[in-house]
Structure formats: C-alpha cells, structure tokens
C-alpha cells in the first residue's frame, strides 16, 4: 500500500513505478486502494469529487467497446494496461471542464455519469437536505456536545447555503 501511495505521489523511479503499475493491474484490492487514495486526495485538495468507481466503470465501458483492430493475443491485457492512464486523462479533462464551468467549488458534485451536462453539475440540488442531515447528526455527536451550539454553525454556514431556500 505504501508503494501505491508513493506511486501516486510520483516518488518512485521508472522501474519501480512500472512494477507497481503491473501489481495494480493484477490485484483488484490495490486498484481499489488506488481509487480511494485519489478520491481522498482530490477531496482534501480541491473539494471536488469523482465517484470511487469511476476508473472501474470506465474500464468496463472500454472493455465493452467493439474491437476494431484485428484480434491480438495480448490485446485484452493491453486495454487494461492503457485504461489506467487513460482513466486519469479522462478524469483530468472532466476536472478541467468542471473547474471551467463551476464558480462555487464547495458542496458541488462532479456528475460522473453525465459530464457533458454542466447544468446538472452546477445544480447541487441536495444542499438543503444536507443541512437537515447535518442538523440531525449534531444531536448525537459527542464532539458537538462539547461545543454546545457552536457546532451548529456548520448547518447555517453561509458558504453552504442553498440559494433556493
């Protein structure tokens, strides 16, 4: 797992990186860790979100694409090998698109299934409901009990207000 996080941070040499990428391809649990690390890092850095299954789903779609090139013995494994960087590239394009279209980074969601529809991305429909859930949660949190009413500031924080309310 450490190697995977080093790979993610670009700390591995070329040879070691190739080795780890091969491990990634063959071990689904490592692929899952790779996804999760990226999701967490993205969330921590930029408050954006890409669904955890993005890479897997993309790969499934790629696998489902009709094969145009003449069949080759190693073709299937090559698709898998290329799909990982390709997934990253597509995610990057989606991210750039999202950044360009969005003016309010917090509490908005990258609609992974419909990246071609910026209106749906910007709608952030559930923010009112989210503050309901936050309010309900505070009641039972020991941390909130220490802070008294101060913890409720999250539910009325002006950055997360639903303008429709």
């Amino acid at each position, binding site marked *: 797992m450490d190697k995977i996080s080093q790979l993610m941070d670009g700390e591995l040499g070329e040879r070691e990186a190739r080795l780890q990428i091969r491990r990634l391809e063959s071990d689904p649990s490592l692929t899952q860790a790779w996804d*999760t690390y990226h*999701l*967490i890092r993205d*969330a*921590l850095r930029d*408050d954006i*979100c*890409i*669904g*955890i299954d993005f890479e897997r789903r993309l790969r499934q779609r790629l696998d489902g694409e009709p094969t145009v090139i003449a069949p080759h013995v190693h073709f299937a494994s090559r698709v898998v090998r290329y799909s990982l960087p390709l997934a990253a590239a597509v995610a990057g394009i989606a991210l750039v698109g999202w950044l360009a279209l969005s003016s309010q980074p*917090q*509490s*908005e*969601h*990258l*609609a*992974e299934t419909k990246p071609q529809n910026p209106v*749906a991305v910007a*709608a*952030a*429909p*559930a923010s009112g409901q*989210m503050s*309901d*859930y*936050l*309010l*309900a*949660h505070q*009641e*039972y*949190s*020991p*941390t*909130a*009990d*220490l*802070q*008294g*009413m*101060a913890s*409720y*500031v*999250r*539910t*009325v*924080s*002006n*950055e*997360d*207000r639903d303008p429709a*309310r």
Partner: protein
Amino acid sequence: MSLPVRLLPSLVLLQFWAPVALAETLQEAEALALLQKIAGAARQLNYSGTFIYQHGDHVESSRITHFVDRSGEYEKLETLDGPKREIFRTENEIITFDGEHRVIKRERRTRRNSFPALLPDQLAHLTEHYLLRKGELERIAGYDAQALLLEPRDGFRYGHKLWAEASTGLLLKARMLDEKGHAVEQSVFTQLIIGAAVVRPVFVPSSSSSDRSRDPPSADSATPADTGWVVKDQPAGFRKIIEMKRFKAGSQTPVAHLVYSDGLAAVSVFVEPLPTSRKVPEGLTRQGAVNIYTRPLSDQLVTVLGEAPAVTVMQMANSVSPRGQ
C-alpha cells in the same frame, strides 16, 4: 564485554519505561475528568459570546448564547457574517429562522434527556483509540485556558485540541487535526461572558414579522426504531449508539438514521428510497471537518457523514447493507 553503542539508548529507555507508562495513565485519568467537565460546562453554565469558525480559507463569526434555569436549557446561535440565520434550541425543539424571522425549519427533539453528553461507558473506551494528554495553559478571549490533546491512535479519526476555561471548564477553543497535524476546522471565542449577566434568549419571532410567519412549517421528527439496516465494516471502536426513523414534515416515508461513535467522533448513516424527482449527488464532499459521502444502493440512497476522515465515512458507506444479508 562492552555493549554496542546503538543499544545504549534502548537500555536507558527500558529503565524509564515503567514510570513513563504510569505518568501516561495518570495524565489520561486527569484528561478524561477534564473532558467530562467540558461537556458538563457546555450544558450547565450561562454564557454568551462571539466566536470565529474557520476551515480552509473560510472564516465566519457567529454569536451564541446558552441559558439554563429550572425550566430547562435555552440556546441560540446567530450568524454575524453573510445572510442572517438564527438557530434556537430548547429541550423540545430546534428552530431555524431566516433574516426576517421566518421559520425555515423546525425539528422536534425527543431523546435529549436520555442522551447525556459523553456517556461514561463511551469515555472508558476513548483511551483505546485516543492518547489523552494535558497541554499547556494559554490565554483565550481574556480567560486562562487549559489545553487538552486527544491524539488518535490510528488514521480513522481526527485529532482534537481543546482549550477549556481554567475554572469552569467551558470550551473556549477547539481544533480538529488531520493525520498530518493540519487543522481541518477550528472555532474560538473572541469575546465571552460567563455567569449571571447572561439573559435568556428570546424565542418568539418579533411581532413586526409575525404576519409573515403565520404559516410556519410543521416540525420534522425522529423515533427510535429498528431500521433494518446495518453497517458491516465500520473502523475499530465505532459502535452503534442509536438507531431511528426520521420523518420529514408532511412526508410519510421514513429515513433510516443510524449513529456510530468511538466516544468522541460520530458518524451518521442515512438510508432513504432513491428519489426519482431530483438528481442525486453522488460522491464525497466536505463541510468543515465533516466529510459527507453519498452513494446509491439498489433502490436506496445512502448518505454517510461525520466529523471523521474521508476513509472512515467511505468505508462505512460502502458496507451499509440490509440486516441479515
């Protein structure tokens, strides 16, 4: 025969190990007592002040008042920056007002008295997952404050640094820290009065605007119940503390709400039928220290949130399943 030099430090360490362990235990007992004092002070004292809430680049100030007498607790939070919002909390109800004193949300409280702050048996488990230490004395909002550190023993919970007013135990400042020691959220009083000078907050909407609040929304409510849902793979130490069905005012469809806690952090799990009328956001977002993760599960929508790292919230969300499966 001489010992290799590199072994000397470990021998020295060995000699001091026992007293160090004892000192840690004593510190923990003292720190636990302080934690209970903080929780008690938040509910038993009268206080009113201005505090700053910040996370990332975001900073905003609010005013809070807590008043208690024989008839119960009365609390108010009022935003001072941006659009005005007020939240009133009594033993029976939580009401949110907008800037024109219109009620925008009401929630009935039912379980408060049977759900005291920091249950003793949870506190006993706290030291399994956090290392507790007393910190230094500092001055905050004009008061002497005792610092208290809660360092997580694994990556599934945030660290906490709390500053409690030295004589009453009232929490003056609180900071949550991620695994790298970076603050994910902080709140601190900049001005505060404690004691007799605090007056009871007014709960009725002002008369000038009463005509506009003639038709306030009816209250949401929650009833403790078996929801039929369970989290199968929560991180070590997170135990279910309550399970209920929530009813949004005017809706017959309950939302399952389960709360898991390690004694300090809490994670809430909400399960509801997948809405057909609106687009469902999916994935991870944040509100200060609270991570929120939403995912569909067949025809249901699972929302998990809590003041815990993303990995905790996501691991729990991904292991929600109907009981018995």
